[in-house]
C-alpha cells in the first residue's frame, strides 16, 4: 500500500538519519567549495551563485538517488515489492515521494541560508527557493528512471542511464536562469512556469518509465 511504502522508506530514512543529514551537509560543503576555488570577491560570487547552488542541489540529489532501489534490489526486497498486489506505479511514486521528502526538502530549506553567504538579496532568495521547490521533484523523478535502469547493469539499460543525465540539463538551466533573472532585476516568472511544466510532464511520465525499467532490471 502507498502509505506503507512511504512509511517504510521514512522509517528507513530515520534509521539512516545520519545519511539524510549528510546529504544536507554535502550540499553545504559543495556550495562552499566554489568560493574557495574561485575567489572571495563578493561581486563575482553573486553572479555565479545561481549556477553553484543548482549544481550542488543536482549533485546532492544524484548521490542520494543511487540508493533509491539498489538497496532493495540487493537484499531481495525489491522482488517482494514487485510481487505485492499493489499497482507498481503507486509504489514507485511513493518511493520517489519519500526520497524527495527526506533528501531534497531539507536542501531546499537550507538554500536561502547559503544564498546569504553569496550576498543574494531577499527577493532573489525567494525565487531561488521556489525554483528549487519546483525543480527538485523533477530531479527525483528523472533520477528514479536512471536508478532503476542501472540496477541490473544490463548493457542496454546502462546506455539509457547515460541518457538520463542530460535530461537534468533543462531543469538546471531553467532553475539557474530564473535566479539569474531575479538578480538582474527582471521577472523570473517565465522560467519558473517552464520549470512547472517540466515538473507536470515528468510527474506523469517518469514513474511509467521507472516501472518499465524496474521490470526489465529484475528479470
Amino acid at each position, binding site marked *: 500500500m502507498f502509505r506503507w511504502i512511504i512509511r517504510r522508506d521514512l522509517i528507513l530514512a530515520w*534509521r539512516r538519519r545520519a545519511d539524510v543529514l549528510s546529504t544536507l551537509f554535502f550540499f553545504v560543503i559543495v556550495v562552499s567549495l566554489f568560493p574557495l576555488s574561485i575567489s572571495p570577491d563578493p561581486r563575482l560570487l553573486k553572479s555565479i551563485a545561481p549556477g553553484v547552488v543548482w549544481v550542488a542541489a543536482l549533485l546532492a540529489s544524484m548521490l542520494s538517488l543511487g540508493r533509491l532501489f539498489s538497496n*532493495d534490489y540487493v537484499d531481495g526486497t525489491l522482488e*517482494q515489492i514487485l510481487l505485492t498486489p499493489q499497482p507498481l506505479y503507486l509504489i514507485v511514486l511513493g518511493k520517489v515521494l519519500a526520497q524527495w521528502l527526506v533528501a531534497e526538502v531539507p536542501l531546499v530549506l537550507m538554500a536561502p541560508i547559503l544564498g546569504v553567504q553569496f550576498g543574494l538579496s531577499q527577493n532573489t532568495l525567494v525565487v531561488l527557493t521556489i525554483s528549487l521547490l519546483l525543480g527538485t521533484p523533477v530531479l527525483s523523478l528523472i533520477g528514479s528512471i536512471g536508478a532503476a535502469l542501472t540496477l541490473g547493469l544490463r548493457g542496454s539499460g546502462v546506455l539509457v542511464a547515460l541518457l538520463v543525465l542530460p535530461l537534468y540539463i533543462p531543469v538546471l538551466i531553467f532553475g539557474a536562469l530564473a535566479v539569474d533573472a531575479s538578480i538582474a532585476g527582471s521577472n523570473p516568472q517565465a522560467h519558473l512556469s517552464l520549470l512547472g511544466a517540466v515538473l507536470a510532464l515528468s510527474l506523469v511520465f517518469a514513474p511509467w518509465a521507472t516501472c518499465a525499467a524496474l521490470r526489465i532490471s529484475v528479470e
Partner: protein
Amino acid sequence: MNSLGCVRGDRRLFSGLNFSVSAGTLLQVTGPNGCGKTSLLRMICALLEPAEGTIKWQGENIRTLGEEYFTSLTFLGHRNGVKEELSAIENLRVASGLNGIDLRPKAAVKILRDMGLEGREQLPARLLSEGQRRRLALARLAVCNTTLWVLDEVLTSLDKAAVALVKSLIEKHLDNGGLAIVATHQELELNSGSFLRIELAS
C-alpha cells in the same frame, strides 16, 4: 500450466514441461545445480517471461491477471528480502503491510517467537546470523493468507529445529487447501497433503 519452455541466453534449460497442481498439493522441484529450478520458480511468479508456453492460474494466464494474481502468491527466493536496517519486528510488519495485512506489534512478536527469534526482535537484521535472517524471511509465511507459496531452497542455512518448523508450516498450509511449490536439494517429507515431484535434468 502448459508446455513450458525456458531458454536462458543461448541455452535451452528445459522445454515441453507440462504440469498442473491442485489444491492441497506440494510440488517439489529438484535437479542438479543450474538445471533451471530457480528459473522455473521465477517464471511461475511472473518475474521471468517463459520463452514458450504459458502459465495459468485458475484458468487464466498470469500475465493478464497481473496484480490480482499477486494477492494469492507468496514468493521466497534465494535472497531473503530482509532489510538490514530494520529490526526483525519492523521487517515483518512492513512486509505484511505491503501485502495489505496490518500486523499489530504484539502479533508480530508472537510470530517471531514461534520462529525461534525470541530476544532478537529488536535487533537490526544486519546483526542476525544467516540462519536467523532466513527464519525472519520465513516468518512471512506465517502471516500471509495466500494460496500459492513458491519457495526457492527454503532449507538453506537452517538448523534441524528450523527445518521441522518449516515442514509444519507447509503441512498446515496444505491442510488449509493451499498450494506449495518448493525447490530444494534436500528431501522434504511431509505427513500430510499430496505430493508431486518434478525432476529437471541438467
